[in-house]
């Protein structure tokens, strides 16, 4: 029933050194809260993405711990200050143990 979560990330391709820019992320996921009941009155088990981690060149720069109160198809944006060129690794961690990963390159040039 559930579709495979697809991450979508917007990172500018090229930035100036020292520039502070916004990174916007979105992933398709039903974020089942564990609070709802099905038509038979049984609680639908919780299944959410509980953690989002952003790394740059292997170093963690931002983390978000999500609770069931986060909306379906969770959106997360945050900022990053450009220092050097490299690669972002964004990881979404699901309750069921799966990880969804997106990698995005960043070029820093004056």
């Amino acid at each position, binding site marked *: 029933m559930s579709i495979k979560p697809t991450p979508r990330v917007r990172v500018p391709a090229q930035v100036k050194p020292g520039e*502070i820019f916004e990174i916007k992320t979105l992933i398709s996921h039903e974020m089942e*809260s564990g*609070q*709802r*009941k099905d038509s038979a009155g049984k609680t639908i088990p919780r299944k959410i993405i509980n953690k989002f981690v952003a790394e*740059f060149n292997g*170093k*963690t*720069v*931002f*983390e*978000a*711990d*999500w*609770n*069931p*109160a*986060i*909306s*379906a198809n*969770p*959106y*997360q*944006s*945050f*900022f*990053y*200050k450009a*220092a050097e060129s490299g690669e972002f690794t964004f990881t979404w961690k699901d309750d069921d143990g799966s990880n969804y990963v997106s990698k995005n390159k960043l070029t820093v040039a004056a």
Partner: protein
Amino acid sequence: MVWNSVETTRREALTLASMLGFAALLAPKMSFADEPAVAAEIKKLYGDKKLESGKIKLDVPEIAENGLVVPVNVEVESPMTDADYVKAVHVFADGNPLPGIVSYKFTPACGKASASTRMRLAQTQNIVCIAEMSNGNLHMAKANVKVTIGGCGG
């Protein structure tokens, strides 16, 4: 239906039973967090440390038409250098089944302690935001959101 009749027919009894059953189905069974629950969560994280005001810009809509998707933006004033930065930000709600919404961990590499996401709100309630600075100081901000349609889908 004649209520003062001594005998109740089988049909009447069944109608009454189904009505009661339907009412039970409609009655909310969910329990909600409240202000003490949020205070308890904060105490669990930081004990009885003093909560200062200011520095936090908590941006939520005054009225949310759809409680399923309510944008929440937090921005904390900070130079974000290695010596002085925002370590963590926690967002709580006092009228949801669970008090926690989101916890962020920032690093100086962020350049700016600001993050946005979207949350579910079950009813009209207060949003509480706590920011932990690198020197250990705590700041708090609070905002009320009026919810027209709750986002709990119970």
